[in-house]
């Protein structure tokens, strides 16, 4: 079944399919259409959607709603994601399942409200104090907006961590044909519940990489939620052993499951010594460049990074193994190239392809940089 929709519509539909029943957001170009869809649609499924007084309130509503058992999502753009920063840290510390859509626009600051960019990539990973991991997925097209939103909810609920959707103005506002019949619907995931007759420890984990059991505010247990370093009961703690274990757990619950989270889409060609790496909207130009490259008799492979964070290192290393030259295309001045450079061997040439004037990298730009034009 084919449909014609915007990325914003696809995100909203993906969220509703994933059982999203709480949304709060503040109007900002180009994320506003998502807010409008959710405000209109969530009441129909018994959910709550609200425009907060600002971005800080909006993400605050989502965080505590999630701890009250809701499946929560919010959406914003550069200036708003900057304001989310402190609460993203809180969500990591409190182990809150939360989906955050970042519709990237040109930065820094107010930048270009109606121009597209991929300049938030490192900020999304490192933009909150402490430096603990979260998950960032990058949809390449409208269809991905639908499926990766469902995936984001699944990962958020499973790992009790904020999952960010790193999309962009172009993908969210543009419309495209989507083959909705081919979309794999992800079953709605339930958080692992705490046993009813249990002295509930909201932050108790058997192993560092395990996920605590859940009991919502208003449920059968007393729930203590905190943004401060804490013990298993959720009481503030400065005990070095307790704090060390907590912090290692926050890292281990993502790091130990990288193989289940990380995703790299590979289009490999036998005998290729050039690899094109891209993500998000830029992956679409790469796809067309790849087809033209091969049509002209060249051999080339491509790797599309779907999970920007955690970095799919294993898959990238495999994809890069036989390559002499690696071209990394992105709408910034080389943010993800840093990750590729640290994985590359000394004898591999890593070349950046950039664009920061608000327009898209065209297939021609990639072909030219690759010497195929």
């Amino acid at each position: 079944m084919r449909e014609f929709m915007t990325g914003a519509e696809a995100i909203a539909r993906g969220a509703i399919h994933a059982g999203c029943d709480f949304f709060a957001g503040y109007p900002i170009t180009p994320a506003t259409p998502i807010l409008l869809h959710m405000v209109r649609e969530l009441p129909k499924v018994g959910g709550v959607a609200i425009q907060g007084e600002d971005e800080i309130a909006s993400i605050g509503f989502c965080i505590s709603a999630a701890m009250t058992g809701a499946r929560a999502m919010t959406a914003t753009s550069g200036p708003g994601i900057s304001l989310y920063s402190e609460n993203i840290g809180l969500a990591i510390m409190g182990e809150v399942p939360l989906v955050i859509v970042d519709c990237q626009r040109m930065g820094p600051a107010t930048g270009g409200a109606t121009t597209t960019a991929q300049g938030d990539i490192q900020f999304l990973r490192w933009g909150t104090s402490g430096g603990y991991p979260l998950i960032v997925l990058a949809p390449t097209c409208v269809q991905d907006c639908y499926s990766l939103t469902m995936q984001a909810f699944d990962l958020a609920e499973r790992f009790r961590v904020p999952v960010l959707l790193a999309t962009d103005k172009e993908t969210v506002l543009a419309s495209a044909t989507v083959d909705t019949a081919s979309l794999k619907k992800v079953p709605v995931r339930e958080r692992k519940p705490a046993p009813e007759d249990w002295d509930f420890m909201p932050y108790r984990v058997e192993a560092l990489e395990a996920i605590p059991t859940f009991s919502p505010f208003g449920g059968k247990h007393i729930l203590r939620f905190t943004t401060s370093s804490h013990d298993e009961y959720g009481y503030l703690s400065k005990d070095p052993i307790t704090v060390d274990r907590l912090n290692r757990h926050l890292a281990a619950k993502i790091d130990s499951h990288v193989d289940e989270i990380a995703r790299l889409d590979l289009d490999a060609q036998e005998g290729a010594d050039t690899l094109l790496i891209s993500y998000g909207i830029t992956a679409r130009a790469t796809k067309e460049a790849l087809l033209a490259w091969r049509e002209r008799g060249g051999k080339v492979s491509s790797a599309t990074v779907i999970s920007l964070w955690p970095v799919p290192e294993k898959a990238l290393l495999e994809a890069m193994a036989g390559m002499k030259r690696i071209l990394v295309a992105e709408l910034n001045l080389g943010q993800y190239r840093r990750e590729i450079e640290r994985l590359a061997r000394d004898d591999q040439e890593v070349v950046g392809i950039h664009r920061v004037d608000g327009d898209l990298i065209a297939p021609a730009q990639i072909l030219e940089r690759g010497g195929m034009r």
Partner: protein
Amino acid sequence: MSDQGLATYLNESMLPYPFCPGCGHGPILDQLNKALVELQLDPRKMVIVTDIGCCGLSDRFFNTNAFHGLHGRSVTYASGIKLANPDMKPIVLIGDGGCGIGGHHLINAARRNIGVTVLVFNNLNYGMTGGEHSVTTPMGGVTSTTRQGNLERPLDIASTVALNGASFVARTTSFDKQLSDLIVRAIRNEGFSLIDIWELCTSYYVPFNRFSRKSLETTMTELNLASGVLKDETRPEYSRTLQERAKERSGEPAMPPVPLEPSFSHALPRRMSFVFAGAAGTRVGTAASAFCRAAVLSGLWASMRQDYPVTVKKGHSVAVVILSTEEIFFTGIEAPDVVVILSPEGLKKAQTRLPSLGSEAVVYTHATLAPIEVPGRKMELDFSQAGKHAMRKEFWPIMAVGEVLRDLGILELDALCEALKMQPAYAEANLAAVEAGRGAARPG
């Protein structure tokens, strides 16, 4: 819970309180406990929400749900809990510092009259970080950041929320023996409640200002601030109202699929790109979108990008469409195959693309626009014979799409009509416009 109910909500094992001798925080918490015992709230149906500052240490002394969050944001967390579950009773314990950094949230929670109770531990300065001035420090007050006396007028928290929609508001001090009665009334209120509780910071504000219990009262008098209950009224509580409103929409299908089953033929010779350039507010995007849906109804893949200024109804509006028999990956274009220009704003925007046009390209321009030089075929769109549609610019784009289809023959006109019928509210007007525009295109 025994038959007599809970005798205390305090977690005795955590006591004594860690607050400085003479600090008002402990007495307020005792009064809160007294109020909770009277109310006999289920500790699982209430949440003590705190943020940063000495009073942010308070939640651990209660055997209830707790949410300890970021500085000044406790009202947002309390609101989120209430929105997600209107049966919950969130009680916020916040300092005057939190009311400063999070004042925006207080005002908006009051405006909504959301069912959150706020107890302000107002000791007129930042006690935890070393006695800096806060939004409630009286003028002239000496603090570690106002050594020569505070120059800023203090914020009247209680009146601010009362003026902006809170349904229960009181002002008192931590010495008030009836404080627990006020807390009971505040929590019983269904909507937004706030008690501004003035107290002493014995480590900083008291020694810096020779401040005393008596000074609390004289300061209130000097500022002309009343104490006791300032407001007690009944207004609908926000989360319940929102819930009731949602019920009115409940069961309606949420974003049902809008299938575009291929049911028309097409004659697209190759992948083609189109630029529709007109004036903002004249439904350029709507027309281009209908064009795309007509293409999908004809078994094609379509993509559409739009460009317009943030003011929406002034300036240009440009839609870039690609049609293909195969999936479209890159949605940008280098040189369009077809350009439709309907207004001077559109011309200005499309002009940069004109030199790149190939000799196969077709350009349609509105008849009133100055002639332009292009390498390919030129067509003029003259809507002056389109009757009542002639002067209605919001129909020009859809009339243009109709004429482009008639001229190029790449899609059946019926496919466009079918696409337009899928938006019933505008279908009749749009179909009439497509018909009215017939014959408007002629070689230019």
